[in-house]
């Protein structure tokens, strides 16, 4: 299978390990990714004018004939929201005034979790692919906000299950994580740090209380807020959290038998070593622990 890949800006900076593990996991699943040529930023949550944000998304969509996959929940939500707006002929005409290649028809837009889930569902023998089941690991499924919003997409915006299902397919156990859909407040972090910090510490405490070995994140901004920001939050609130935050592609990659280096696991801020150690203990010493970071 071949998909168009829309990395989004964060994949090139703070979410670098998300891109590395996305490419690695897709390759392991036999999915070829073709990066969209000359793609542009989706505007994220910072372009308030709707015609402009719709046009930003549309320019990316028209640059390929393949279904478009992204790993970022914000990009994913923006692309989907734009397609909803673009159903209206007048909006389409306005947007097309600015575009070189015109937006004519809807595209299939996928989030990487959908791609991984589908690939595993379609596999004749998933056990053959999941060569290193994550048995014994407890995972807090962090959806964040935008994966299922606006509604009508990948899963229910109120009671999604896609992430828990994937965790189980990979051999791990999802924890009961009450704040799994609480927004990380990443979009307002820069100017409103105090407000974001209060919410973030609650999310982290709740994930930890759920008994998770790690949290799995689906969005580079959620990840940045929970992972790179975690040491800062620990200092601010004077408490130890030490909860590894893995990207969904890092989690899947591990189960697919990929090594820590291939998944960029040394780039995570909070050490992922406890997860790897636990996994290798369960799995015996076939990896010799050489790739533990």
């Amino acid at each position, binding site marked *: 299978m071949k998909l168009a890949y829309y990395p989004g800006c964060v994949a090139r900076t703070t979410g670098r390990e998300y891109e590395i593990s996305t490419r690695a996991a897709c390759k392991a699943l036999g999915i070829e990714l073709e990066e969209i040529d000359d793609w542009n930023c989706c505007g994220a949550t910072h*372009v308030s004018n*709707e015609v402009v944000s719709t046009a930003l998304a549309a320019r990316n969509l028209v640059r390929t004939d393949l279904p478009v996959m992204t790993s970022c929940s914000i990009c994913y939500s923006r692309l989907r929201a734009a397609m*909803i707006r673009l159903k209206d002929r007048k909006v389409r005409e306005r947007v097309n005034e600015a575009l070189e290649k015109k937006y004519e028809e809807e595209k299939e837009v996928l989030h990487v979790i959908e791609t991984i889930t589908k690939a595993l569902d379609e596999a004749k023998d998933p056990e053959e692919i999941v060569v290193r089941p994550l048995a014994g690991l407890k995972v807090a499924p962090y959806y964040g906000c935008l994966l299922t919003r606006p509604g009508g997409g990948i899963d229910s915006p109120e009671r999604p299950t896609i992430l828990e299902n994937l965790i189980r397919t990979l051999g791990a156990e999802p924890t009961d994580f009450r704040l799994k859909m609480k927004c990380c407040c990443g979009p307002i972090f820069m100017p409103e740090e105090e407000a974001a910090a209060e919410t973030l510490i609650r999310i982290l405490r709740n994930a930890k209380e759920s008994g998770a070995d790690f949290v799995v994140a689906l969005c580079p901004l959620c990840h940045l807020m929970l992972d790179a920001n975690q040491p800062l939050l620990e200092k601010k609130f004077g408490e130890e959290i030490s909860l590894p935050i893995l990207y969904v592609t890092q989690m899947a990659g591990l189960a697919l038998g990929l090594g820590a280096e291939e998944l960029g696991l040394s780039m995570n801020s909070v050490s992922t070593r406890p997860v790897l150690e636990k996994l290798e203990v369960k799995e015996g010493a076939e990896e010799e622990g050489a790739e533990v970071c």
Partner: protein
Amino acid sequence: MTEMATTMKTETVASTAKMTPEGEEFREKVLKLAGEEVKTCIQCGTCSGSCPTSSLMDIPIRKLIKLVLEGEKKAALESRSIWLCTSCLLCTVRCPRKIRPMAVVAALKTIYEEEGMKSKDSVFEGIFARQIRSHGRISEFLLSTEYMIRSPSSAVQIITFGAELIPKGKIELSFEAAMGERIEGTEEMRRIFDLAGGEKEAETTEGGEEKAKKAEGPMAKESKEAAK
């Protein structure tokens, strides 16, 4: 509770009676940007009750919509709430009237900027938008340095965060990195951002109104389906 409801009712009547031409113009502008269905708000408070940052807001989203409908331009634009919205869309998937409260907030941000008002939050959004317009992509290095220069109180936060990210190789400090990644289609980017200017013209015409109204249709339908 009864007392509160009575006060609220009185307020509505009083403000409607004294809506200034400027207030009316403001109300119409928000409706055009965010959708005519905003008028159908029943003030149920589902939006405020769902909002992840409502406890930090000076004016809850429900009340903000009421202010818009009453043409209370100054109070609505000066509210800190519009900058505390994380755009998480929970209000939008839940609104029983298929209103998109987040779009109301976005409309208020647009008007805020057009009016030349300024806050650290609008400065950040301005830098973000300008960078997409000029480069096509966001460089977090450029974004944070420019924001730090324009909003010096953010320096400690940005430097501490940078100290976490730079050793991981996630933010590069090379000359090229500092210049930012630039796409080839920057001319197209400029045209896309110029569409915002066209919006002002479109709003004065009947066509503009029709467009805004129609645009809400598919979205509302989508939310309805999602709710099922």
